[in-house]
């Protein structure tokens, strides 16, 4: 700062917020006494700040409606039932393939999914595989005879005590029968999962404080409501997973793409602005980054084609409504995901990693359950990161420099806002990921590499690659199969991958 040049907006805000050190403050004051222009700019910023403060106090906080409460008893509870613990960590461990799944923001309710699943015809299965800790056994899907194995009997006793069908545990009806009991403090979580190969699933998880079964989750094929996996968290027990062994692929309807909304008449060729308007409209309903939606210009550039796959009807309607008024836009949804080559072999191929190395990871995480929690959270966040980087990459591909430079100022501003939104979400997710992984890292992640200045489109491609590499590493390390040396190598690579991604996000945000 000197008196010949104006104060930057940054300095004015720091001055307003009293964040400058005393010497800088004195300098700024001196300049402001002499410079009317900076004084005017400061007043404008103060007006914005004051308006926000009023909004914060008069609108935002009252809207949040803090419940009345009394001073809590200062005794720790034996179990914090509010803790989200995604039992699917071990489920992920059964998958040798990397999944990319995107949480839909408007999932159907557990009741809704279960009702449809109960109404669907349950396909015959040959065998179920049970996995709990190191123990693994198979049994017929529908059990008609008793077992003499003590360990199996123990698991059977748990199911019986929880009033959960032992005869047919991998069944929507069995899940619903348990869930519809008078469970105290029952909480449902429904997640839509989209596998990289195009298959989609619903995962219903119900937690309760009633009885010994604290949490049960059921995975259903989205197209057929066919149950494929279940996991059970009994009090004081290892997670119990149940999956189909080598059953034939569940019946799927042939792939059929149907246009839900009739195409609007196309009057003129679609422009990048049309495309950007679609992105902005999708962004406004939170639909661009984390849902299986593609936005492309058709080869002849006649229209912007928006395609979605395996999405719930309500969400389809919401997207159609958001895009209804946009010109040159065609919306198409596939009613069922693509049927890809059988992946059943993959989904049951995973086996526990090297026991000693696994134990080492558990020790670092603070225990088996903590490692499962860490795994689930880290993979969740990694997926979110990946989704955001993919959305950014799509923007980069759709709006290369020549196209971007031809945009109107308003469109360029919209594009910038979309980019910032994705980068902001990535930065936030990365912090959370580092927090989650801290127990496994020897030191804090330091941002080391200096990224060379490059067009944001180039950086978006680098970000995507880096995010994908990190996601693969995490998936393999936390949910894959490998030997101890490979595990040690991955743990060593992790800080570098995080650091690289961090520095890329930082560089892209500038």
């Amino acid at each position, binding site marked *: 700062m000197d008196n010949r040049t104006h104060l930057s907006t940054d300095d004015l805000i720091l001055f307003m917020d009293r964040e400058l050190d005393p010497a800088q403050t004195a300098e700024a004051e001196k300049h402001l006494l002499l410079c009317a222009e900076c004084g005017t700019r400061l007043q404008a910023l103060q007006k914005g700040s004051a*308006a926000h403060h009023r909004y914060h106090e008069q609108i935002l906080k009252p*809207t*949040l409606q803090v419940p009345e409460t009394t001073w*809590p008893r200062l005794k720790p509870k034996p179990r914090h039932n509010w803790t989200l613990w995604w039992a699917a960590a071990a489920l992920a461990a059964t998958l040798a393939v990397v999944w990319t799944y995107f949480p839909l923001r408007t999932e159907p309710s557990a009741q809704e999914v279960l009702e449809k699943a109960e109404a669907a015809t349950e396909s015959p299965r040959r065998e179920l595989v049970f996995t709990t800790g190191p123990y693994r056994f198979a049994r017929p899907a529908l059990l008609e005879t008793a077992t003499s194995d003590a360990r199996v009997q123990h698991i059977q006793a748990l199911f019986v005590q929880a009033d959960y069908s032992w005869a047919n545990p991998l069944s929507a009806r069995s899940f619903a029968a348990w869930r519809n009991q008078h469970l105290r403090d029952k909480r449902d979580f429904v997640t839509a999962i989209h596998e990289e190969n195009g298959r989609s699933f619903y995962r219903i998880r119900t937690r309760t404080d009633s009885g010994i079964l604290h949490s049960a989750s059921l995975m259903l094929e989205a197209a057929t409501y066919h149950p494929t996996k279940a996991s059970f968290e009994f009090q004081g027990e290892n997670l119990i997973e149940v999956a189909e062994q080598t059953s034939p692929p569940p019946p799927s309807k042939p792939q059929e793409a149907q246009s839900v909304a009739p195409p609007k008449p196309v009057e003129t060729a679609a422009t990048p602005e049309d495309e950007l308007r679609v992105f902005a409209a999708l962004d406004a309903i939170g639909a661009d980054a984390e849902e299986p939606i593609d936005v492309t210009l058709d080869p002849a550039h006649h229209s912007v084609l928006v395609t979605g796959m395996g999405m719930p009807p309500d969400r389809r309607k919401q997207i159609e409504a958001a895009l209804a008024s946009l010109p040159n836009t065609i919306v198409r949804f596939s009613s069922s995901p693509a049927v890809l080559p059988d992946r059943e072999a993959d989904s049951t191929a995973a086996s526990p990693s090297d026991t000693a190395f696994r134990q080492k990871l558990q020790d670092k995480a603070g225990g088996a359950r903590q490692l499962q929690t860490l795994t689930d959270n880290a993979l969740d966040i990694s997926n979110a990161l990946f989704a955001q980087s993919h959305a950014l990459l799509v923007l980069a591909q759709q709006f290369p420099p020549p196209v971007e430079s031809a945009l109107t100022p308003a469109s360029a501003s919209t594009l910038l806002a979309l980019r910032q939104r994705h980068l902001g979400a990535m930065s936030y997710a990365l912090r959370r990921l580092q927090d989650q992984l801290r127990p496994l890292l020897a030191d804090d992640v330091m941002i080391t590499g200096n990224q060379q200045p490059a067009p944001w489109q180039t950086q978006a491609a680098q970000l995507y690659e880096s995010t994908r590499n990190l996601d693969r590493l995490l998936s393999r390390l936390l949910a894959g199969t490998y030997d101890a040396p490979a595990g040690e190598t991955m743990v060593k690579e992790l800080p570098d991958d995080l650091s690289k991604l961090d520095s890329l996000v930082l560089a892209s945000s500038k």
Partner: protein
Amino acid sequence: MIALNENLRPDTASLGADLEQLYAETRASVCSYLLYIGVPSSQAQEVTQEVYLRLHQTMLKGTQIENLRAWLFRVAHNLGLKVRHRERAFRAVSPDWNQVATRAESAEDSLLNRQRHTRIAAAMETLSPQQRHCLYLRSEGLRYREIAEVIGISSSSVNEFLRRAIARLAEAANG
């Protein structure tokens, strides 16, 4: 009132009373923050209580806390993220404008207030979650380094987020 930048009295008898007073004074801020970052209201109260429980345990261990307010928000932030639904967006604010209007002094003031708030609300919608996050904590009186500590980012990032956010708000307020 307990000064938030002073340590609580460490003896067990005084600690309980001090904490109770601190709870009464700061609970609403902590709970609002949890709601804002997306913790369901059914759980925000419980997480809030957990924050003070952790504080109690920390104090009993004799740990010195330099800045209680930042500590409370940081612990709330970390606990809140654990229970928050996956990447749930910041809570959408849908104010009851009629209620807002009745708090104003006159019909004219009411209209002006409403216009002002509408412009700020629209500007807020264009901000990134981080920018809104930093603004929220700034309005709660946290310094930049405290905001950085709560969210787990660098002070320079906080500075950057706030610079862009305040500039945007100033445009809206002066537009």
